[in-house]
């Protein structure tokens, strides 16, 4: 029985961390669906293609070649090393070391070599990422909204990756030595182009101690992965999962096409023409125009908020932000997520029923000053590597300010007054529209 203790322990660890992970994932799902309905199930083949190109193919990442290339390395490393993770988990459950080796033969050696090279490249890429954030101090990583936890969060993720890769390589290094010293327990398999350089560190250590070391690395590595998996929920790193649905359900229309609320068409028509009768059952004016809180946004906008990695490409191209205004599209996404998580916590502690908290996204998180600085130029939407749409949130909140609170800046009120009275944003008579032809 005692010989199975590690397997049982591992099983418990796997089960606990998976349960935690799926519980948290479920909470995210619940929070996302607090948003309004939006049908994005049309053009499915185009959506699949878009997801494959943008999320799987990283097509938008590489528009910035340095960050893009580094990211592709970490991304490919992450995906491929996860294949090895399958073997590591089976090792934990069955106690059988290098389970796939006998079936794969020389391909196995090749794969292990590839994983090692990738692990090394990931380390190099992570080093550059860390340098960009902490030494080169690239501007977009140092904006106001990045102070405190967001900065720490970004660094923690990098440290996680370093530790995991080093453990993976150390595990292989000790394993490769044991393959020679202890062939009954450690079958000869794999090739170790990178860890061979670490191996000398472990030479001269007794077989007993090497076994302990190898198992320790193995346990810390897999535990680290489980911790990281559960850290995701608290971090900005959910994009590794959500980038896929996020690009699948992205807006496929022209970026200039803003949402047209066809529900109010009848109401508008009856206002313009008193003889127009609203067809029965067709008067569907919403209870509230626009958005003042996360409940007023649609589920895709809320998923956008969870998907955001806070890379700040949006903010770095925002004309308002570049010229020193308060608006930062990244902050809009971070605020939306923070408010949504606050609502989520509220639900968790009140048995799933939202208890009014006298707070909302508008004012408590996002100020009107930020919203009015937007030029609706779509640069943020274009820049996002996973097609997040901060502009749609800004526009929904503007709509709330104008239609529910009549809180537009005074100049915009006079512009709108002009349109209403004489059909142009300036106070000219509509009868003079053709005067230019005679001038």
């Amino acid at each position: 029985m005692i010989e199975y203790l590690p397997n049982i322990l591992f099983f418990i660890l796997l089960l606990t961390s998976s349960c935690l992970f799926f519980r948290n994932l479920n909470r995210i799902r619940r929070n996302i669906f607090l948003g309004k309905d939006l049908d994005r199930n049309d053009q499915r083949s185009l959506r699949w293609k878009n997801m494959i190109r943008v999320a799987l193919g990283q097509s938008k990442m590489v528009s910035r070649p340095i960050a893009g290339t580094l990211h592709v390395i970490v991304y490919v490393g992450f995906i491929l090393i996860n294949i090895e993770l399958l073997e590591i988990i089976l090792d934990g459950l069955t106690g059988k070391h290098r389970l796939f080796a006998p079936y794969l033969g020389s391909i196995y050696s090749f794969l292990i070599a590839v994983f090692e090279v990738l692990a090394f490249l990931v380390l190099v890429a992570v080093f550059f990422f860390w340098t960009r954030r902490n030494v080169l101090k690239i501007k977009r990583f140092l904006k106001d909204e990045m102070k405190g936890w967001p900065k720490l969060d970004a660094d923690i993720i990098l440290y996680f990756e370093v530790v995991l890769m080093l453990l993976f390589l150390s595990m292989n290094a000790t394993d490769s030595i044991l393959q020679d010293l202890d062939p009954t327990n450690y079958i000869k398999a794999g090739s170790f182009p990178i860890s061979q350089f670490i191996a000398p560190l472990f030479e001269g250590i007794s077989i007993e101690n090497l076994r302990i070391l190898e198992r320790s690395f193995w346990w810390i590595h897999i535990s680290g992965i489980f911790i990281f998996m559960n850290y995701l929920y608290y971090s900005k790193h959910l994009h590794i999962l959500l980038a896929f649905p996020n690009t699948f359900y992205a807006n496929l229309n022209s970026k200039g096409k803003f949402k047209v609320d066809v529900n109010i068409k009848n109401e508008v028509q009856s206002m313009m023409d008193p003889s127009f009768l609203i067809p029965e059952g067709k008067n569907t004016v919403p209870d509230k125009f626009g958005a003042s809180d996360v409940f007023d946004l649609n589920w895709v906008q809320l998923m956008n908020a969870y998907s955001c990695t806070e890379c700040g490409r949006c903010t770095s191209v925002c004309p308002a932000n570049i010229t020193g205004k308060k608006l930062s599209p990244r902050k809009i996404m971070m605020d939306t997520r923070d408010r949504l998580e606050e609502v989520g916590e509220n639900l968790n502690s009140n048995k799933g029923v939202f208890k009014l908290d006298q707070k909302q996204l508008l004012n408590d998180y996002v100020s009107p000053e930020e919203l009015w600085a937007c030029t609706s130029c779509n640069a943020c939407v274009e820049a996002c590597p996973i097609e997040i749409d901060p502009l749609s949130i800004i526009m929904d909140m503007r709509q709330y300010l104008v239609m529910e609170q009549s809180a537009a800046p005074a100049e915009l009120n006079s512009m709108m007054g002009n349109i209403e009275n004489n059909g142009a944003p300036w106070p000219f008579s509509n009868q003079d529209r053709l005067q230019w032809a005679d001038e």
Partner: protein
Amino acid sequence: MLNVPTLAKLQAEGKKPNVVFWVGCAGSFDDRAKKITKAFVKILNQTGTSFAVLGAEETCTGDPAKRAGNEFLFQMQALQNITTLNSYDVTKIVTTCPHCFNTLKNEYPELGGNYNVMHHTQFLKQLLKEETLTIEGGKFKGKRITFHDPCYLGRANNVYEAPRELIQKLDAELVEMKSCKSKGLCCGAGGAQMFKDAEAGDKEVNIERTEEALKTKPDIIAAACPFCNTMMTDGIKNKAQEGNTQVMDVAELIATANDL
């Protein structure tokens, strides 16, 4: 003398134009933009294009109201315009304003207004392709021209090449700014910003964009939007570069090249 028939007049004569020229509020009332309107009409007249304007029957598309958040006012404008356009059985529209272009093209269909909408640079490119329009290169030979992408033409509707193809016909040197095409920087006018003061910051957006444009050492900054034109012209004045750099619409470039 410009020949600018209205739809009402043509209808009274029992005629129907091939295309409606949507002039837009800026093109009708703004002194700088009126010059663009006239330049475009001169080209339409020269090429013998069958067109008409709505004149006093045209009214704001509702774009600035919509971007400011007033969906109601937007729809009032839209429904009014759609009623007018549909009463004339309009099928094809060309406009010199990317904001009108975007709204008519993308936001009117759901409200019952379905038209084939073109920006004037697309329209002129088509005339060029049909060989109805020829562009004389001489006047701009050797000049450096940089093109400022209007957000509502470029990013919003993926039209990047039409204006560039036209500029290239001028025998001029087309130089690109650091951020151009899908990465083009806004002039600062969109989203109803044109009609209000900017929020507190270190700089005006149009100054930032003008500085980018001036880095290409251009003789001419080509624009394709009346609002961008205003913003860039103001920027050039602010930088006291009026003597060296002109801001011109693509239609004005072609009208000038063709001595119209």
